[in-house]
């Protein structure tokens, strides 16, 4: 036998041993992500309030006993969740297991269902899904009710009366524009049809799969003679956009905007603001809330009915709905659900408020109801490829 073939089994054994060592020693499953891939949390402009009232103390103790929280589908740049997670970890010393950062609401719901019997770190404790999923969560008994301490300051139409789900933040659909690639920044929906934007306008998702893209069509409807009950003008708008050659059928990401391939995209204002902050001028990004239609979209939170760490989950909710947590979201460009309450009490730091687009634009924002959203969903799904779909030969 040649020297190589004699040595090979030895080498193989060595590699297996090494890899098992690394694989087993490398912190995985229960011991989750090592700290600080993200920037350390910036000091909150408002210091956390004095020691919490008694029920909170019990909750904190129980949560710390559980020691870990499992979240799902929370990208760090979405509403500044990165800082929220790091702040939570630092404040209470609880580990956070992050699953599937790229997931959609469907992923989160399927994850709850699949992990019903699983008490391990694959089972999500808390979910953050689209507004339209509220009824399904209740019907399929996927969540457990919980009312945070600040429950009363959450607007009535953004929460389930029994506490099964509750709105967390909202944003308004905006244009994200790469100013280095585009001479004139579009200000209204009608601008997008102009020939100067040929091959430059894109969605940030598939309207049949992504709430963000679906709401873009919905917002286009509002701007073109439709209403919250009639989304068809939005489909017509995109058809015109496609026929004019302005529409690029690629899913736009921060990279494609920065490259200039899709310099004008439609997404939530907080995502656009996050891109602007992340790119830091390279290239220059402008976030435009179209003057002719401001469609607001709410997302909702829930605690899984099968959560392996229910107390940690409840503490997470308390943290997010405290003033501190709500302002962390505000820093990410999201409007936290208790925004009006915070504004009334004057606890919003001035520098944070300065980074957001002007408040008057948000005053005109319209909030569709769950039924309206679901109807629009259906219409868009049934007609998207008929109206807009590239006829691929």
């Amino acid at each position: 036998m040649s020297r190589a073939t004699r040595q090979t089994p030895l080498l193989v054994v060595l590699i297996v041993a090494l890899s098992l060592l690394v694989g087993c020693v490398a912190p995985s499953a229960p011991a989750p992500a090592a700290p600080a891939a993200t920037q350390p949390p910036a000091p909150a402009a408002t210091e956390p309030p004095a020691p919490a009232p008694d029920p909170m103390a019990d909750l904190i103790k129980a949560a710390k006993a559980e020691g870990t929280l499992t979240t799902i589908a929370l990208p760090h740049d979405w509403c500044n969740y990165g800082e929220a997670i790091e702040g939570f970890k630092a404040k209470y010393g609880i580990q956070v297991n992050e699953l599937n950062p790229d997931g959609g609401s469907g992923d989160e719901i399927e994850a709850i269902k699949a992990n019903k019997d699983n008490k391990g770190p694959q089972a999500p404790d808390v979910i953050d899904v689209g507004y339209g999923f509220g009824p399904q969560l209740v019907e399929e008994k996927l969540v457990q009710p919980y009312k945070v301490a600040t429950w009363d300051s959450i607007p009535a139409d953004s929460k389930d009366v029994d506490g099964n789900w509750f709105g967390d933040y909202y944003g308004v659909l905006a244009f994200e524009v790469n100013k280095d690639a585009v001479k004139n920044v579009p200000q209204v929906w009608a601008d997008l049809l102009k020939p100067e934007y040929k091959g430059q306008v894109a969605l940030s998702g598939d309207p049949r799969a992504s709430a963000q893209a679906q709401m873009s069509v919905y917002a286009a409807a509002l701007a073109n003679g439709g209403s919250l009950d009639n989304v068809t003008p939005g489909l017509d708008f995109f058809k015109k956009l496609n026929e004019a050659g302005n529409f690029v059928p690629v899913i736009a990401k921060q990279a494609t905007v920065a490259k200039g391939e899709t310099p004008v995209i439609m997404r939530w204002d907080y995502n656009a603001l996050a891109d602007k902050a992340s790119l830091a001028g390279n290239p220059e990004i402008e976030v435009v809330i179209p003057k002719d239609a401001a469609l607001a979209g709410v997302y909702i939170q829930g605690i899984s009915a099968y959560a392996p760490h229910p107390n940690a989950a409840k503490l997470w909710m308390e943290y997010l709905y405290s003033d501190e947590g709500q302002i962390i979201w505000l820093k990410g460009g999201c409007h936290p659900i208790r925004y009006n309450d915070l504004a009334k009490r004057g606890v919003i730091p001035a520098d944070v408020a300065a980074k957001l687009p002007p408040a008057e634009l948000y005053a005109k924002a319209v909030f569709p109801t769950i039924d309206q959203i679901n109807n629009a969903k259906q219409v868009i799904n049934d007609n998207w490829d008929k109206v807009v779909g590239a006829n691929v030969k």
Partner: protein
Amino acid sequence: MPPERRAWEPDLLKCRSHSWTRFYGPDKTMRIRKLNIWGWVWVTAGVLYFFVPLIATFEFSLRAKKGTLSLLAYQRVLEDPQFWRTFGFSVSMGVVTILASLILIAPTAYWIRLRLPRLRPVVEFITLMPFVVPAIVLVFGLIRLYSGKPFALTNTVVGTDMLLVAGYMVLALPYMYRAVDTGLAAIDVRTLTEAAQSLGAGWGTILFRVVFPNLRAALLSGAFLTFAMVIGEFTIASFLVGMNAFGPYMSQVGQNKAYESSSLAIISFALTWALMGLIQFFNRGAPEQGQMGGAR
């Protein structure tokens, strides 16, 4: 049969029978050039097709600092401890998956060819199934079945990693099986086995000292495919181990950071290529394929 020798040893016999001399036509020089030119043309075309997109990505990743070309995006990625941790984890999972897949699939493919040829269509169909079962269905199915009472695999680190490797093995099944099967098609399995048996070899010897050394190139191809797949795999990793694996990490960077996602793509490409070169390195010195078997 010419004596076994290392690939780097010069062989006068080889020079005489090497492919390029076979094509001496009436005008000896012309035939060589013609053959080599076509070879180089195809390879060059291939290199262009594969490298230009990589160059475009690289060019974009250099623009992290406005107005100048800089390696800032690379610096940020390489300084991120999470990058090294997740990459190391996925590499180790890749190695384990390769070995487990080889041990499962290579003997099976051999056995099917040798003794159960009628099962071949069934087995081939099974190996193509992972293409049509969506990975998300697979991972949720695995969790449902093996996280509950009798197995409770997900309650321990080792158990979860085992489940992860099992999932990867399923995804690697088509590639590994096809690679081994193609390699087996190129050697005469029956004759080799019978010759070894008539010399008194047991099954272990036949498999590991006769058949597999002949399949080295094919096994290596399968190993490469599996390794690359494991490094980049996203869905199963993201639901089983979350941010501990490289795939979810890459996806998270890709969402939030434009330049870093491009530099990460280039870095992971280069690192994986280097690691494969390392695997290939262990393979050097093997006799050239096809010299040990009898005529097909």
